């Protein structure tokens, strides 16, 4: 099986990040003229809406629809590009920005036209220092050639773009927390509604889209919605850059048409798990997505199929976990991440992530009983849907899914860890039966 490359088509071209090479390969030029001069903003918006392009950042909300929510009128409107790619397992935007920054800039201009915004910000995570520098250099080139600034290509449209560097906070990938980070505050999510489309950055209507989403816009304007739809299936149109990581032989970014079976992505493209090992489970959409198991490998990789299977396509990052991995340790690592990254604004998330970590530690240390799994399920239930954003849910769902798919393993771990601890406690007193039980314990 091979990839279907749209966004990554020229990614191996030397110096693609320079304006010269990007223009030579068809960037800006005719299609930007089309968006700016031939089509009206309504027509650009309509094309995006008809393409059914869905957000590539996690939620999968239709981009055109989101843009259509932006009110008309003369108020200041903004476009924000969410380049705070922090979802564990996701590294597609990094590649796009490093290798093809002008594609993103062009996407931002077109997004700006659709939203009626003339000021845009690219919120890039601070860790992507090199990529931010590349973007800055690309912006300077684009300004120099008149693709940004006042009256682009002598059209009615003006558009300014600024690269805003974050300083390390996963929560800033959440759209309203991103706005707070951009306004120079702690990145705390806001109560919704009002949604950013009505009241976002500096209280103005704001369109927020992921890097990959915006990178799709130029081709849609150039070749039309119908062409774009032909690349995917049903309501999952276009291609997807899938970041495959974890226990596979060839981790990396692979671009496929949506609807490609998961098995082909994991085995044919990424090489499958290492010799002699099997897929135990996988996160189909970043670490926030509930895990799926072997039986789901033949599902088509679409927003719908992943949702029907009880998970989500999310940011399009497949993390493969093979059968050598102990799930309690993985769940613990996962929960520690969310505990660390919880902004602390909502109690269920702040406390729930902390308690989940503590309970998983108890399991590992042999202090837990099988009843703890019930308590843990309750904690997860109390997080779900009870916070301003979905960070807490993003821990509750995958941890919950691990326990429900692999309950036996968790119970066994509890028993073995208890036996091991008991052995350590009493071995000096000589308890042969406990010693025997302890031999089977985890190391």
């Amino acid at each position, binding site marked *: *099986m*091979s*990839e*279907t*490359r*749209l*966004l*990554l*088509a*020229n*990614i*191996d071209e*030397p110096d693609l990040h320079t304006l010269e090479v990007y223009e030579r390969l*068809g960037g800006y030029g005719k299609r930007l003229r089309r968006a700016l001069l031939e089509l009206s903003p309504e027509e650009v918006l309509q094309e995006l809406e008809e393409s059914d392009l869905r957000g590539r950042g996690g939620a999968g909300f239709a981009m055109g629809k989101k843009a259509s929510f932006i009110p008309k009128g003369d108020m200041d409107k903004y476009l924000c590009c969410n380049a705070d790619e*922090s979802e*564990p*397992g*996701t*590294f597609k935007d*990094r*590649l796009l920005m*490093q290798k093809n920054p002008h594609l993103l800039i062009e996407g931002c201009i077109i997004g700006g036209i659709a939203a009626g915004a003339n*000021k845009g910000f690219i919120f890039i995570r*601070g*860790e*992507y*220092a*090199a990529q931010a520098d590349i973007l800055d250099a690309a912006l300077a080139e684009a300004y120099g050639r008149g693709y940004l600034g006042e009256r682009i290509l002598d059209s009615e449209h003006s558009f300014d773009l*600024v690269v*805003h*560097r*974050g*300083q*390390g*906070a996963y929560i800033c990938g959440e759209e309203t927390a991103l706005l707070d980070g951009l*306004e*120079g*505050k*702690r990145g705390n999510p806001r109560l919704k509604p009002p949604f950013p489309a009505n009241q976002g950055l*500096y209280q103005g209507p704001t369109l927020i889209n992921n890097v990959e989403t915006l*990178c799709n816009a*130029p081709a849609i304007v150039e070749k039309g919605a119908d062409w774009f739809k032909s690349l995917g299936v049903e309501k999952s149109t276009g291609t997807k850059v899938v970041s495959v*990581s*974890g*226990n596979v032989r*060839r*981790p*990396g*970014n*692979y*671009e496929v048409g949506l609807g490609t079976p998961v098995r082909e992505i994991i085995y044919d493209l990424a*090489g499958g798990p290492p010799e002699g090992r099997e897929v135990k489970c996988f*996160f189909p959409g970043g*670490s926030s997505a509930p895990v799926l198991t072997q039986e789901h490998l033949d599902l088509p990789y679409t927003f719908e199929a992943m949702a029907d299977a009880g998970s989500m396509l999310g940011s399009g990052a497949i*993390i493969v976990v093979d059968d050598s*991995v102990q799930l309690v340790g993985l769940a613990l*690592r996962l929960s520690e*991440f969310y505990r660390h*990254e919880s*902004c602390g604004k909502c109690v269920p998330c702040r406390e729930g992530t902390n308690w989940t970590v503590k309970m998983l530690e108890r399991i590992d240390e042999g202090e837990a009983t099988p009843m703890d799994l019930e308590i843990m399920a309750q904690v997860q239930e109390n997080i779900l849907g009870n916070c301003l954003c979905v960070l807490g849910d993003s821990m509750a769902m995958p941890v919950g899914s691990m326990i429900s798919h692999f309950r036996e393993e968790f119970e066994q771990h509890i028993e073995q860890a208890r036996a091991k601890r008991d052995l350590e406690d009493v071995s000096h007193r000589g308890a042969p039966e406990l010693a025997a039980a302890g031999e089977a314990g985890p190391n």
Partner: protein
Amino acid sequence: MQRAGDEGAIRATPLPTGWDEAVRLDEDAATVPDPVDVAVPDELRAEIEGHMAKYPDRHSAALPALGAAQERHGWCSPEAIAQVAVVMQVTPAYLSSIATFYDMLRTQPIGSSYVYVCTSVACHLRNAKAVHDAIAEEAERQGVEGVDIREFECLGACDMAPMASVDGRYVGPMDVSDAPEFVRQLKEGRDVLPGRSLEDPGFRLPWDTRAQPEQSAGPEARGEDERPPAPDYAGGDRPGTPEGDAA
């Protein structure tokens, strides 16, 4: 206001900054500093003002401004915060609230450069914790000072796991056995693991074997697979679709 006594003796030791740590209850809240009292290096002032000019609201410059000050001071020291506060005309408390929130802003003088070893989910599956521990141990053995070595959450480079960011330079994939060389180069102030950074020209992942014929010989391989492999990239991809689909 309390007078100095036993209380005062305790407070004479410098208090750590950080919102969940001790607070000086015996002092009034700091106000927006007077420009007369705080000297700001010209370069830093220009940089902060440059950031402020980019946004409709000057507060938006808080993150980049603190980043710029940290670069000069090594951390968000009270002095650094005062300098940003006086240029931006905001209270130091406002800036402290931000410095304590974001992971990359240091509220302790740990070191002016950093090594973030990613130990998040995807790296965890590839033994990242052991790599971090080996580097930390080795750094202690070799007596490296002034470097903030720590575990970090996902750095967005799971294709090169386990990996680390050395002052923003991404290196990987690493192994426990890389630790001595890694630390030696770090101590000498050179680029660590040359040739194995995402930013190095011609960087390729070890399993990125596009040049090998077997890679393009799948049953469904297309004719275009025969185009020559590009010299660099980091994604482990192989040649794919016709150029006609070019974006």
